[in-house]
């Protein structure tokens, strides 16, 4: 199954996501890794939640 970069939403297989991986240390995910949809993300002081309309929610916990 094709997967996607959770920072830029492009196919993981395309490569070149090193910068995305580094940036993700200080960013929540923005795209669903399964469908590349933009997720609804809420950042709170100590965590985050990211919800894909199709594939459900992820949390930082």
């Amino acid at each position, binding site marked *: 199954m094709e997967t996607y970069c959770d*920072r830029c939403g492009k196919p993981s297989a395309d490569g070149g996501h090193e910068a995305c991986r580094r940036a993700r240390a200080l960013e929540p995910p923005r795209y669903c890794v399964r469908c590349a949809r*933009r997720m609804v*993300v*809420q*950042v*709170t*002081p100590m*965590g*985050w939640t990211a919800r894909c309309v199709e594939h459900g929610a992820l949390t930082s916990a």
Partner: protein
Amino acid sequence: MTDILEVARRQVLEEGKGLTAEQAYECLTLPDERLEDLLALAHEVRMRWCGPEVEVEGIVSLKTGGCPEDCHFCSQSGRFESPVRSVWLNIPELVEAAKETAKTGATEFCIVAAVRGPDRRLMDQVREGIKAINEAVEINIACSLGMLTREQVDELVAMGVHRYNHNLETARSHFPNVVTTHTWEERWETCLMVKEAGMELCCGGIIGMGETVEQRAEFAGQLAELEPDEVPLNFLAPRPGTPFEHYGLVEGGEALKTIGAFRLALPRTILRYAGGRELTLGDLGTRSGMLGGINAIIVGNYLTTLGRPAEQDLQLLSELRMPIKALSKTL
């Protein structure tokens, strides 16, 4: 020519009079080998006029994304192809965020919304949120809801909002390169109304948005003229999809010079580390800034990006023997 740090020692440290924009420019253009001297003096000034205490704050986005303004640094503008989608925080989540913040020892919690200015729905949500937070946890509440009318200022005062954040963002001369949907003067106007109403004013900006060093000094001078109770200093973290996406990071030494110069221009102000410090300064630079004029921090995450773990900042404050305390206009 007299050395600017000698001048600052007499004028700022001894007499408590902040540097002018021209003098701040001299600090910003000191050679790199004078950086340590600048930071040491800025630290002395902070200790003399503010004390060793540090104010710790948490912030949360009540309404994220979909903003009609075009602030070129912001991923929450609805005008750019940003990955940030619109979302509202509900009241239980807001209260939970305030409780999480208070658990760190923070004394300040700021509720932020990505809007031009608040509409009725947002004001009602803020009112309900503040009531619920006050029932659940003891913490000072600040707000950042964009440009206000005088009636809205009064309404926030009545809700018990003790401090209002509204950044000028950058020097007046550079502002049109950063925002085109409203003016610097409109922001200034809201800041004045906040002060007149007796709320504490939190007003700062972002360094690294293409401004010149002269404009950084100009900005310091304009903030000093406004006399805010708090100045949050952000360093640009370029966001995907924004017009500033491809801007570089501010170099660490330059960021530290900015901290030192702003402290010397604003000797009695709460000078807060805000967004971008993790990228621009890293752990070592963060420590240097705490010993170079900073006396307040945002802990934990920011509005759409993440910070370093709160424990790391609290550990640093403990090592530096800087106790956490609410600071205010009494400084």
